[in-house]
């Protein structure tokens, strides 16, 4: 199972449930943009490590909306304190999806610590997050995202990026259209 397959399932589910989505830096956002570009996606083009924090901030400001961050193992390892903050805040509308390919995929597939000893699901539990799930089957992605609106889902995938173009939207446009979706009354 490759990351883009998970992103395709996650994006399709997020669309159906009306969730706001944060895409991680590099290829993950490019893959999200390629499979289902919509204004409800915030593509994080810089600030490695902060997708989970940005998602938390959106969820706290928009408690009526479901918010999903599609993060990666390398990025969560860079900002592990975010797991403790998410646990302390316990937002019911925020789901952190960690797509774990055990490598820094956008920089040449150097191995991350999750390819060695580190288990991010256990780290998330240790940080105090109550709902932590692990998936390694593609068909479970939609089912789990529909059932679970908060906590962490760790999805194990193989390394490797899809052949997708860079995002040509300018940052201000990505943000403005995303903010318009946040401001829109939600049923």
């Amino acid at each position, binding site marked *: 199972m490759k990351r883009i397959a998970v992103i395709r399932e996650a994006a399709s589910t997020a669309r159906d449930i009306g969730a706001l989505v944060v895409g991680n830096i590099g290829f993950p956002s490019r893959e999200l943009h390629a499979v289902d570009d919509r204004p409800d996606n915030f593509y994080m083009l810089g600030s490695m490590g902060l997708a989970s924090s940005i998602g938390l901030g959106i969820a706290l400001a928009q408690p009526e909306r479901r918010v999903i961050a599609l993060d990666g193992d390398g990025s969560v390892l860079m900002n592990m304190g975010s797991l403790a903050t998410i646990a302390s805040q316990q937002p019911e509308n925020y789901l952190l999806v960690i797509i774990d390919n055990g490598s820094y995929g956008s920089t040449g597939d150097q191995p991350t610590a999750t390819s060695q000893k580190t288990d991010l699901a256990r780290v998330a539990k240790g940080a105090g997050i109550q709902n932590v799930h692990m998936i390694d089957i593609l068909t479970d992605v939609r089912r789990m995202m529909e059932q679970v609106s908060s906590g962490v889902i760790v999805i194990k995938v193989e390394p490797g990026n899809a052949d997708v173009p860079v995002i040509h939207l300018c*940052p201000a446009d990505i943000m403005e259209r995303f903010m318009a979706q946040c401001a829109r009354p939600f049923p």
Partner: protein
Amino acid sequence: MDPATSVFNGLKKSGIDLITTVPCANLKEVILMLEDDPDIKHVPVTREEEGVGICAGAWMGGGKTAMLMQNSGLGNSINALASLNQLYGIPLLMIMSHRGVEGEPICAQVPMGELTTRLLDALVIPYLIPDDHDAEQTIHRAWNLATAENKPVAVLLDIPFWEGA
């Protein structure tokens, strides 16, 4: 007015409704006031960069956001301030206890204390400093500047500020 109350009043006057904090001894009174305010969501964070990300998300979601931090945390935030706030044009009010300057008893605070304004200049982040022990107007001006220019703005509160009464 005591310095902590003037900081809190500046946040209230600006309508701040979500604030991320990393503590400093000089900020302890303000942090207690935030905890008690039902209209402010207080989010203690583990590292300043994380706070920058949470504030950016909350602002996109319609919040009015600030960070309460020590100047040492500026070093932990620089990439995010540049490649998130400045890239997209996201405002942020940064209330900084400025250590390592006049009256500092801890030598380890001095290097970052002396570099703080130079780092802010390099980042093209404006910083405001209150004239006296009343930060309310300065903080309000900083928030207005941040939202007018869609960028981070810092308010530096040095050791003599906190010693005022």
